[in-house]
């Protein structure tokens, strides 16, 4: 009994909650329309970050929720000024994948593929190649993907710049690439580091351009292989192919519309953005020649891999989205990105998706309008776009509070943060995400993962969350009191009351599996 009382009293929200309790008990309609300062602070941590850690709860208690929140919001919009924990910095420094250039990364992939291919050939001849050679792709590529995933998890758990992390997750997912496709796995860390992170509070057009030119995207959506019909390699390439006739069938011979379609459907205009199949084909023609530097890619150079190759480009006149586009080489693609980045359909598409991810599965139209208007007015300034979200009444409304069902990724990270667990071995965590249907860097399709409850709430998900809650609860050694304190105002009074009557041994698991913690 004593223990149960402690859980109630130690919670940061106990006082605010007690007031609420009286009103809520009388009638649900009596819940105040506006959020209390404590609720606002927790809302910010849950939506603009991966949830509270014990230290956050302590800081809120010490500084007072209002003061803490003002400072938090200001700091989060200027993430570069935030000092990072030494532990995180050290961990990131230890990861090779963040230090290698694109050409070196691709080189590692190609070496591994070659070693495996040769080993298999030997095997077919009845020889016994070394296991290392046979498994080279697995042994050399997987650690690089795992390093990327370790970096992402470590930042999500420990970075002081939490908003930057949730925005990175959002925009990576928006411009999704799949680590399981060919060489994308070795490039995925560089993609996130160079094409996404620098722009999450920068300009949309810059991110769009950086993803369009990144080898991970060029490989994932096949644009590196999309060429003008009738393309013939240059003389040096032809000589190379004479020596390697088996590669001849792989020389691209014409258009591949994969990237052009998803660029309009997913990255910019949206599926109802008013383009036709003809526009897809014409945009694919405009983007021919955007690919990888063949010399660097094949022979092993250094630095970035993007190259525009005029020989592969279809220089003819195109009719795209009602305009006539004359042959202008790489400038045609840049022009297309300019048009797409400033198109009203793009503003609307991004506004709705952003509001859905950060506010509600069915976001208020007023908020979508506000975000779209801001995007258009600022020419796609994502800092202003994010600031518009954070300043919106809709974001802080009672309807939005605890209204989003966490994705498996959010559920995992917020659990580890709330329990203050160190990131010792990422492997079981990555496996848990795979089991839950959200492998990190493992969304196969270019639409990435959904952020709505309908996509994640089902019996299998519940089974897995309860399993994780039980395992982490036992492993962390954290008491229900302490966890309750950390979660503060995000745990409702009914939940706190129901919890105290449960056996002490299962209180932590139940709190993590509670509706309050399943949502954010």
């Amino acid at each position, binding site marked *: 009994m004593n223990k149960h009382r402690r859980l109630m009293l130690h919670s940061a929200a106990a006082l605010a909650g007690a007031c609420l309790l009286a009103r809520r008990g009388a009638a649900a309609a009596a819940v105040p329309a506006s959020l209390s300062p404590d609720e606002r602070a927790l809302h910010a941590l849950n939506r603009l970050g991966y949830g509270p850690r014990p230290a956050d709860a302590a800081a809120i208690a010490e500084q007072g929720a209002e003061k803490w929140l003002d400072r938090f919001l200001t700091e989060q919009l200027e993430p570069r000024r935030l000092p990072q924990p030494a532990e995180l910095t050290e961990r990131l420094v230890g990861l090779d994948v963040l230090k290698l250039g694109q050409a070196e990364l691709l080189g590692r992939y190609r070496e591994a593929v070659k070693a495996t291919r040769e080993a298999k050939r030997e095997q077919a001849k009845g020889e016994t190649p070394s296991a290392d050679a046979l498994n080279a792709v697995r042994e050399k590529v997987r650690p690089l993907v795992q390093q990327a995933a370790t970096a992402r998890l470590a930042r999500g758990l420990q970075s002081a710049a939490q908003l930057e992390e949730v925005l990175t997750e959002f925009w990576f997912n928006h411009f999704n690439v799949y680590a399981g496709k060919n060489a994308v796995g070795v490039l995925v860390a560089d993609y996130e580091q160079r094409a996404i992170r620098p722009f999450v509070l920068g300009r949309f057009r810059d991110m769009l351009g950086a993803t369009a030119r990144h080898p991970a995207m060029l490989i994932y959506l096949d644009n590196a292989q999309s060429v003008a019909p009738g393309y013939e390699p240059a003389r040096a390439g032809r000589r190379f192919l004479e020596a390697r006739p088996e590669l001849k069938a792989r020389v691209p011979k014409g*258009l591949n519309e994969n990237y052009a*379609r998803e660029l309009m459907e997913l990255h910019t205009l949206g599926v109802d953005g008013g383009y036709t199949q003809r526009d897809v084909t014409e945009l694919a023609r405009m983007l021919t020649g955007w690919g990888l530097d063949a010399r660097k890619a094949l022979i092993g150079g250094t630095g970035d891999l993007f190259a525009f190759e005029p020989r592969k480009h279809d220089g003819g006149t195109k009719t795209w989205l009602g305009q006539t586009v004359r042959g202008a080489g790489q400038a045609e693609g840049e022009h297309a990105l300019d048009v797409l980045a400033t198109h009203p359909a793009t503003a609307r598409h991004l506004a709705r998706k952003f509001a859905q991810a950060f506010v509600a599965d069915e976001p208020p139209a007023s908020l979508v309008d506000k975000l779209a208007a801001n995007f258009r007015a600022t020419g796609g300034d994502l800092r202003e776009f994010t600031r518009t979200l954070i300043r919106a009444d809709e974001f802080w409304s009672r309807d939005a509070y605890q209204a989003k069902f966490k994705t498996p990724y959010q559920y995992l990270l917020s659990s580890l943060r709330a329990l203050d667990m160190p990131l010792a071995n990422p492997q079981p965590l990555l496996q848990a995400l795979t089991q839950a249907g959200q492998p990190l860097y493992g969304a196969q399709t270019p639409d990435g993962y959904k952020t709505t409850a309908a996509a994640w*709430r089902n*019996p299998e998900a519940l089974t897995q969350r*309860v399993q994780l809650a039980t395992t982490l609860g036992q492993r962390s050694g954290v008491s229900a009191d302490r966890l309750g304190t950390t979660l503060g105002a995000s745990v409702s009074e009914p939940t706190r009351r129901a919890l105290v009557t449960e056996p002490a041994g299962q209180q932590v698991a139940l709190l993590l599996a509670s509706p309050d913690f399943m949502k954010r």
Partner: protein
Amino acid sequence: MLRRQLLHFGAFTIGGLPVSLVRAQGSAQKKMVVVMLRGAVDGLSVVAPYGEREYAASRPQIALPAPGTDDGLLKLNSLFGLHPSLAPLKRHWDGGQLAFVHASGSPDPTRSHFDAQDYLESGTPGRKSTPDGWMNRLLTALPGEPAPTRAISQGSTPPRIFAGTASVASLGIGPNAMQRRAIDDPQLQAGLAKLYASDAQLSGTLRETTEGRDEMARSMASGNEPRAMDPTADAGAPSARSFAADARRLGTLIRKDPHTQLAFTAVGGWDTHVNQGAARGQLANRLASLGEGLDALTVGLGDTYRDTVVVVVSEFGRTLRQNGNGGTDHGRGNVMWLLGGPIAGGQVLGDWPGLDTAALADGRDLAVATDFRQVLAPVLQRHLGLSETSLATVFPQAPQTWRYADKLMRA
């Protein structure tokens, strides 16, 4: 709310005995399994129209060789051949339990994977606002009593096709899918039920979870047959995590649970824009694993295969002509596969528009001559016993009756 309560009683309290025991000897329940190939499988490689001159001409590197040649198609008739990687399914064709409907698909012309899948799963092409999936509406419309495991979704995430108000059990992927988990602890369940009491959605999910898992565990434990039903089937045992093992587990569960009538599973990875290959290569490997898996599903189904219709669908087909990279881009018409005892197999049904440029959709893709709902309707009505009125709730504004409807099912 009433429905939920009924569900609860229906599942556990008839004469104090679990329903599975009471009804296990009852009349054979009709079943349907839908397998969705996400990413748009190349139907022109699955059932290839080798008899059309345009077929090989449009696909210099990726057309499959005619039947009777090395790595050639498995002959179905004078026009069509089956991809050689699908050899495990040939016995179903020869046995009259496998039919195809070619040039089928959605009347909506979108070439977006995501919209097309959405329409295929909502059952309302062209309408995005439909809140539920057609298999959930079917579950509600199905004659007979509800039960927690009447519908099973295999996979870790909820598919759009099962979205809706009726309860659906879920079966995970991999060898541990049926293992006992923390949520099976009654004490923890009781605690969760209390916490979820004021959250209608989560308490619904919790009930689906506990009732479904309970029933599935009981069904899997029932019977006295050896674990491997067909001793030869494990000889070339598929790796534990492969589709074949999952499909077989699903089939076994359907056989052992007399309540299960609907199941859904999905297989991804068909978006072959680059080097899809022909008799060998990327697509061939995928199809081999799929064919093996569908065959394993029927092995798991055992004697209930005679009461089961398995439908394999994909959101749209792929371009007739290969693209610049030995792959294919997004197209229109595809092929639907139908397996099972009730199917009048051994035939490729539906009007065939042909591959002449004038007959192609937008001058590039196999046209859609048959609406996917026209093919599903006879399965729902004649096999699952849906009335005309109920059918209209599953597929509102469905197209007119298919002229081959009488030929699809056995009399």
